């Protein structure tokens, strides 16, 4: 059964493309045709082959099937090894984005060297996503489509365990979590409006003293 011309066109175009392409880019390349059905059909066709057609952050690309890794890996290990710090920072950016450096450091309890974020930005996985409109206007960071593509995620919703972490409140700041846990039996909740900052009075300042006034 020969696939129709549009399917063949989408197949050839994505196959030849050097970068993943969005449905819109494909459509523009193919004279404005509606490519969505063709993409679905192709993804279906390739679902059991040695090659897959996958969607990563709204962009489509061909790649080898994951179970072929053992055949291909032995020749080329192209993936850079991330330091432990970079790995953690990447996860924090991905699960909390957009996130400032101070917020990253609040979670890790340690200063983040600028080199760590640089490595992630150089890899094309993290980008500056503007500034937060709070005093000091800190730079905030977010992940890129290349991040999704590299880690095989269709969208951020596919981040492993994201829903569980959300449900457990583990993506909320400590103050919010503390507030939530104690609001029932604690009336004077003065700390609620001072994220990360109620510690100036000394006692648990030790926990915060790694933050950088970025």
């Amino acid at each position: 059964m020969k696939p129709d011309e549009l399917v063949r066109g989408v197949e050839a175009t994505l196959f030849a493309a050097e970068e993943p392409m969005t449905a819109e880019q494909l459509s523009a390349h193919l004279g404005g045709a509606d490519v969505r059905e063709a993409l679905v059909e192709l993804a279906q066709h390739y679902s059991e082959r040695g090659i897959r057609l996958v969607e990563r952050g709204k962009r489509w690309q061909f790649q080898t099937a994951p179970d072929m890794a053992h055949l291909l890996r032995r020749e080329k290990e192209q993936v850079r090894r991330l330091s432990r710090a970079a790995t953690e920072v990447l996860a924090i950016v991905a699960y909390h984005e957009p996130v400032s450096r101070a917020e990253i450091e609040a979670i890790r309890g340690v200063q983040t060297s600028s080199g760590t974020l640089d490595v992630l930005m150089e890899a094309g996985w993290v980008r500056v996503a503007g500034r937060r409109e709070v005093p000091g206007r800190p730079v905030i960071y977010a992940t890129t489509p290349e991040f999704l593509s590299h880690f095989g995620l269709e969208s951020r919703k596919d981040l492993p365990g994201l829903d569980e972490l959300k449900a457990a409140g583990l993506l909320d700041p400590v103050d919010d979590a503390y507030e939530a846990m104690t609001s029932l039996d604690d009336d004077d909740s003065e700390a609620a409006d001072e994220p990360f900052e109620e510690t100036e009075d000394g006692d648990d300042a030790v926990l915060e003293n790694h933050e950088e006034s970025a």
Partner: protein
Amino acid sequence: MTEDGLMLGVEVDSVNDEWEGPGAAPSVDEALYLELDGWEGPLDLLLDLARRQKVDLREISILALVDQYIAYIERAEALKLEIAADYLVMAAWLAYLKSALLLPKEEQEDPSPEELALRLQLRLQRLGAMREAAARLMARDRVGRDVFLRGAPEGLRVDRVNAWQCDWYQLVSTYGQMKARNEPVVHMVRERPVMTLDSALDRVSAMLGVTLDWMELRSFLPQHSDPRLRRSALASSFVAALELARLGRAEIRQQESFGPLHLRRLAS
């Protein structure tokens, strides 16, 4: 709150698969590496110690954790290992927390040691969650390690082609203008009555010799003549006046801009 094994779902060892740091010990207590470089700060060390309690982070014993941490730091000190200030500050704070937790209730300060302990626990949970998330992220099928993109894509190219436009009117009018521009041009000058500079010089010097008074330039011009000749004579006489002034035989004055020019012989 979920009660699933998320917190413990990934063992420390598998977490460490991604990095070479000596953060985790091969076996429990005793074999703890006494290398503080292996931890990303005191919170990270605390988290590692908490994990060794083998319970959900929500149920760890803070008092036990404090003891473990302080014991660890003391042991490092005994071995004369260099310990970063962060770790010592944390040890001091934990010691304070422990004593506060053990104090009778009525002498509690604000924030209460219970609150501090709970906040510490919450922080550990969050760091633990991110550490596991990082491990799960790194374990995904990664491009270039588990899945591969096309090795030699042809690439998509868009070539630009010029579609030149020009119309009939433009073509012929351009030709016409070019022909006109490049035709040899002949200038015809009709014969006109003129006064030459030489005759103007003779005439002006002669007339200057008559008097020592200032005379207006116009009075040197031939009266009642052709207006075209007068124009020529005016120009020639002006130049003649300049020439005489240059030779030191006359002086020129003008009272105001565009006012009449006056001429006078210079006594020699």
